[in-house]
């Protein structure tokens, strides 16, 4: 009992945010429920992003009804590789990644050969809501396949590593690189076994990582060190993330981005309830940083100033950058 109180105090002193605090002080306070569809539906997110001039993977087409499935041929005729996603899928379910064509059939990233009929069946499943939360009818999205930048080759196992930045009212607060592992089946979700690696906001250099709630320094599959890697185009990521506040209007979001080897930073999706493991990856509590941002917001509000995304990025980088090096 006494040990627990000690743990509580220590965590609290380091500003570690718990689920209750995240829900009460951030998600409920800054995220208007009516805006959730914007982030829950990847198609709406994408349309909003395109309008706002934010880079996203190019959309090839949408399939909304069973009749439209026959349009698939037209949609993909110019593309050798593409991705089919449910618009409201969760946890990376129902995503089909086609890497190439093979004698009238298709080849997935894992090398499996599937027929056109199988793709159509998958589309039908998506439409009936097999992968959507709550089993509601859904739409299928066919989009550009992201090819991860070669920089990640040494510290990633299959799949596409992505970068998550938590953004409070447009201010980037904390960043993490998510690396798929063999255990996560190439998916970049931490609770499925992917690694989270903290990223210094100012420089884009990776810190140590977290895997299944533990701290780690090496990728379990490749055994290469995950820290000290310089992410290219880091300022681009920061600006993308900061601009997402204007895009969706939600004040507390996790922005998931990828680094494409040709197109640079792209936004994959937004999350209205970002997880808390990012704190372990960065070895820092979120609450300390969010409080600083909130203080800044109050200060600016008193002056009646609204900062641009560039100014917000600068503020965050000055304040939260240079995370003290690990001993």
């Amino acid at each position, binding site marked *: 009992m006494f040990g*627990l109180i000690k*743990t*509580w105090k220590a965590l609290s002193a380091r500003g*570690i945010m718990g689920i209750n605090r995240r829900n009460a002080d951030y998600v409920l306070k800054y995220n208007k429920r009516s805006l959730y569809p914007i982030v829950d539906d990847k198609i709406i997110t994408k349309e909003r992003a395109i309008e706002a001039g934010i880079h996203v993977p190019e959309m090839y087409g949408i399939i909304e009804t069973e009749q439209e499935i026959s349009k698939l041929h037209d949609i993909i005729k110019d593309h050798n590789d593409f991705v089919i996603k449910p618009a409201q899928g969760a946890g990376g379910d129902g995503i089909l990644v086609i890497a190439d064509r093979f004698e009238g059939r298709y080849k997935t990233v894992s090398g499996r050969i599937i027929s056109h009929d199988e793709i159509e069946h998958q589309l039908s499943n998506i439409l009936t809501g097999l992968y959507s939360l709550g089993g509601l009818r859904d739409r299928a999205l066919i989009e550009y396949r992201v090819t991860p930048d070669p920089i990640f080759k040494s510290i990633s196992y299959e799949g596409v590593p992505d970068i998550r930045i938590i953004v409070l009212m447009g201010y980037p607060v904390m960043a993490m690189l998510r690396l798929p592992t063999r255990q996560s089946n190439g998916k970049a979700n931490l609770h499925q076994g992917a690694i989270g690696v903290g990223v210094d906001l100012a420089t884009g250099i990776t810190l140590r990582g977290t895997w299944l*709630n533990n701290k780690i320094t090496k990728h379990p599959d490749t055994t290469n060190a995950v820290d000290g890697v310089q992410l290219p185009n880091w300022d681009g990521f920061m600006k993308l993330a900061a601009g997402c506040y204007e895009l969706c209007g939600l004040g507390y979001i996790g922005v998931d981005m990828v680094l494409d080897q040709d197109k640079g930073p792209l936004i994959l999706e937004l999350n209205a309830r970002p997880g808390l493991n990012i704190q372990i990856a960065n070895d820092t509590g979120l609450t300390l940083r969010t409080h600083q941002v909130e203080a800044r917001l109050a200060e600016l509000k008193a002056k009646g100033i609204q900062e641009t995304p560039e100014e917000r990025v600068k503020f965050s980088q000055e304040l939260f950058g240079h995370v003290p090096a690990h001993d």
Partner: protein
Amino acid sequence: MRALTLHLKILIVLLVTLGVGLTAYQIFVLGIPVTADETDDLWNIDAKIEFVASPREPVKVQMFVPPLNQEFVSLNESFISNNYGVSINRVDGNRRVTWSARRAEGRETLYYRLVLTKRYSGEQTKAEGPIFRDSIPLEGPEKIAAEALLSPIRQHSADVETFISEAIKRVNNPNDDNVKLLLGGDASTENKARVIEIILSIAHVPMQRVHTIQLSDEAQTPELWLRSFNGERWLYFNPETGEQGLPEDRLVWWIGDEPLLTLEGGKSPEVTFTLSNSEMNAIRLAKLTDENTEASFLEYSLYGLPLSTQQTYQIMIVIPIGVLVILVLRNLIGIQTLGTFTPVLIALAFRETQLGFGIILFTLITALGLSLRSYLEHLKLQMLPRLSVVLTFVVVLIAVISLFSHKLGLERGLSVALFPMVILTMTIERLSITWEERGGNHAFKVGVGTIIAASLAHALMSIPELVYFVFTFPAVLLVLVGFMLAMGRYRGYRLTELFRFKAFLKD
């Protein structure tokens, strides 16, 4: 935000105060018992009146019955007689029943039965009584003896109270010559009371005779006590011992000098008292009292509902407690459960099946359902048909389990039908979605969390004392709401997070 917080705080304080206040009112003012096990003594007093009626003459029997204006509450009162008219009237603080008949013959028996208890004393009416009286005229040696007695009593007393007890003490001294003279050789209580009255009257202190019955199982006749008004309240004295204050178990039957029974048109009347004691569940007693008094505090409680409805409400009213368990488990402890209220619904189902058996059945059906679901997964069915198949399967499964357990002579197995099928189906569905999205490990954790939460909720919801308490004092629910509101702003860590973030404290 701050205004909102203040608003919330005021609301919480308001709800909790209201809840506690109402409950306290019910407990302390209305005197509703706090537990169902609380029992009260119930006294059953039978007065049997026997006499021989004279032929060809109307019969009229008058008897005093308790006035019941003190700490006793009558629950039931009956006058049992054959062919007699009964009327009750109040005279000078007494109650008197009159049985009358035009014609009666031979040995007659009448009964008076009173069921009473000591509970729920209403407001005490302000006592009033005489504080002065004229002296009883005395002559000759008696006058001298009385006056001789009076002066030492005066010396040894300070007020009415001590004066009376001193007088009683003197009268009970058999060696005092003055007393001997006044008593005239008759040392009965009646006679002592007479002498005491004489002495008191010389000092102008009024005195009344009080006839009491002791609440005990022994056969008895009414015992004579004396009382006097000291300007504020009545003081009761035992004329034999000078003991002051009426014992708790003494019930005033009537006051005054008249005999208990008067009989016209008959002879050799005889009254015998029989008392018996029984215990009664406090809330039933409260209901009985309620029917017999004007204060109907139970009328607007849940006890005012028809009995069958009451049973339903006894289940319903504890649901918030189950919900509270889930709230604490999820937000304070951090146990993951399937949905928010599924565990409460499962806990309700456990009521019928019993806990152990319920868990076994639940696990069995869910496991079989899950394996069916994963098999259907291979067939690539759409959601609605898939759910329908699972639901049908659950129904069949339940029927099979009932059939088997019946054949095996396990009657308990039949209760499985009470497991709400839709809850089971939804549990299976959600569990399998969790399985796919977050892996078998997580699904297992959630499943176990659900069972733990349901068992805990069930355990709490079936504590009879708690059910009784919430059912009797529904205002407690307001306190619960207050707590739930407060939980809505709880920002502290969950217990499991302390372990989850342990990595922070390692170096």
